[in-house]
């Protein structure tokens, strides 16, 4: 652990000290349970508010990109919009189709939100802010994430609506296809860090070259490739545009959510946003150095502030991508996953193996190391891209003679 002046800075210690202060009022025997409870409440509160204002930020950023202001009537500049939305969702009638499977229909959003929230337990939000420091934390994260797919199937099946079922199957196919590039992009990070614990992975990215160049995984050839693959796969895993076919209104009404109304609908959206935040948090942890500062002299800013800043920038990138790209069709989606991302991720594994084996090379050979790694990533990317988009050139428009 990086002990020293940074650990004992007041702002850095503040959350943990607050928790210990509150636990001090509780008898000794119940203290671990109280600690866990306070941690859970804190995570829920922070990410609940983040979810609420993320919906507002999304609408306003999308609006500004589309030359309009976004919601600006509820409260000054629209800051009360999430609460207005919450009240609307809560007061809507909860309709359950008569032929629907009531238990599964009720359980699906609950299970989805539960597993999405459970993934936050292993993410290191700060130097001492990990809910559970598991040895196999990354595996736990993906296990919980895989369980959310079941809930989508349950939603589609329980609605007793053939379109909802079809959409649920398509959503499932999309999710399991993109799990493979997601996991394969994460394997190089684990190889280099030598541990599955997220806190350990963050600590393995500590330090700076000359005090300004951080050792984040993003600034290595394999890390850059891995991060790009991870970003695309995370977009697909959280059903975000351009991979939001499962919930596109123009395609299948609302896909597996068709028969849901009111608060259950809100729960589905909450689960989608929580999943997005969780995957972005993991991306920050694995590739962007987690709670580490980018320069040595900026380390006085508390670690959780850096984590929050990086998480918010990744979320803004997601919103930016949503505003820019059109939706992918199902077959285009699958092609991208299986024919493009998976081979590149496998090649990335080879590159990282080469990188690890040549770690001890002397200074001038380091240039060779970088050049070889970069070429092994860029050349296959370009070639594969060319091959896969071979017949799909720019469209030739033939107009009628005027």
């Amino acid at each position: 652990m990086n002990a020293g002046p940074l650990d004992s800075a007041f702002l850095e210690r503040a959350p943990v000290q607050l928790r210990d202060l509150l636990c001090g009022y509780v008898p000794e025997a119940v203290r671990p349970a109280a600690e866990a409870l306070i941690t859970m409440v804190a995570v829920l509160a922070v990410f609940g508010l983040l979810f609420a204002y993320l919906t507002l930020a999304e609408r306003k950023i999308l609006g500004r990109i589309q030359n309009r202001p976004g919601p600006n009537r509820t409260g000054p500049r629209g800051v009360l919009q999430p609460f207005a939305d919450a009240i609307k969702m809560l007061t809507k009638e909860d309709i359950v189709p008569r032929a629907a499977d009531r238990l599964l229909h009720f359980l699906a959003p609950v299970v989805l939100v539960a597993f999405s929230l459970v993934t936050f337990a292993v993410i290191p939000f700060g130097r001492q802010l990990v809910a559970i420091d598991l040895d196999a934390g990354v595996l736990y994260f993906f296990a919980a994430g895989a369980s959310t797919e079941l809930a989508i199937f349950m939603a589609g099946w329980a609605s007793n609506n053939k379109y909802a079922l079809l959409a649920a199957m398509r959503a499932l196919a999309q999710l399991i296809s993109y799990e493979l590039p997601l996991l394969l992009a994460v394997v190089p990070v684990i190889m280099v860090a030598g541990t599955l614990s997220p806190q350990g992975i963050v600590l393995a990215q500590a330090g700076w070259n000359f005090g300004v160049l951080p050792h984040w995984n993003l600034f290595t050839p394999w890390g850059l490739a891995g991060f790009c693959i991870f970003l695309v796969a995370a977009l697909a895993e959280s059903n975000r545009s351009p991979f939001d076919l499962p919930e596109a209104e123009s395609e299948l009404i609302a896909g597996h959510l068709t028969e849901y109304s009111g608060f259950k609908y809100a729960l589905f959206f909450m689960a989608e946003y929580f999943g997005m935040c969780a995957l972005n948090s993991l991306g920050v942890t694995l590739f962007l150095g987690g709670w580490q500062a980018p320069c040595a002299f900026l380390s006085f800013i508390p670690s959780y502030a850096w984590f929050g800043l990086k998480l918010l920038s990744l979320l803004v990138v997601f919103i930016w991508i949503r505003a820019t790209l059109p939706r992918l069709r199902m077959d285009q989606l699958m092609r991208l996953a299986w024919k493009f991302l998976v081979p590149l991720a496998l090649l990335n594994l080879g590159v990282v193996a080469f990188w690890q084996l040549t770690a001890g090379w002397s200074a001038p050979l380091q240039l060779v190391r970088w050049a070889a790694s970069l070429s092994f990533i860029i050349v296959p990317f370009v070639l594969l891209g060319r091959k896969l988009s071979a017949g799909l050139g720019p469209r030739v428009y033939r107009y009628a003679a005027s």
Partner: protein
Amino acid sequence: MNFAFSVIAFLILATAAAAMCLRQLVHVALLLVVTWFAIAAFYLWAGAEFVAFAQILIYAGAISMVVLFAVLLTRQAPLSPSLTPAHPGRVVAALSLGGAVAGTMGYAILRTPLAPASAAGPVVSVRELGMELMGSPLAAVLIVGVILTAALIGAVVIAASPGTTKEEESS
């Protein structure tokens, strides 16, 4: 016996038994998922974190999908099969075979000496697991990997091969 262990064991057995009794195949599949989660809970109770998460990831994340796709994409039997068996001999055969299997397994379980209660299990970290896997069973692990890759590529090739199957299916 430990209270947590008995709760987990009851959950496993109850969900497995309920899964065997239900009519709707999708409900059966979902109850099996609960069984697998309960088995993962058992692994966690026993201190094997890696195996527990691997169990969830593989069973609830992948095998459940396979089961559900298989259930939904294949034609289903009529939803209310009759409760009375076709032939009384079948009941006798079922009971005797089932009883024989249960008896053998019960005998084997009861005859196995349990470890003394005070012995703590080994705390195995993921790193040690990895080193073990790359030690003596290395050849087996590599062969399994090759087989899985071959199966994956074969499945992709079969799925991607164009159509004589389609015409046969539609006739």
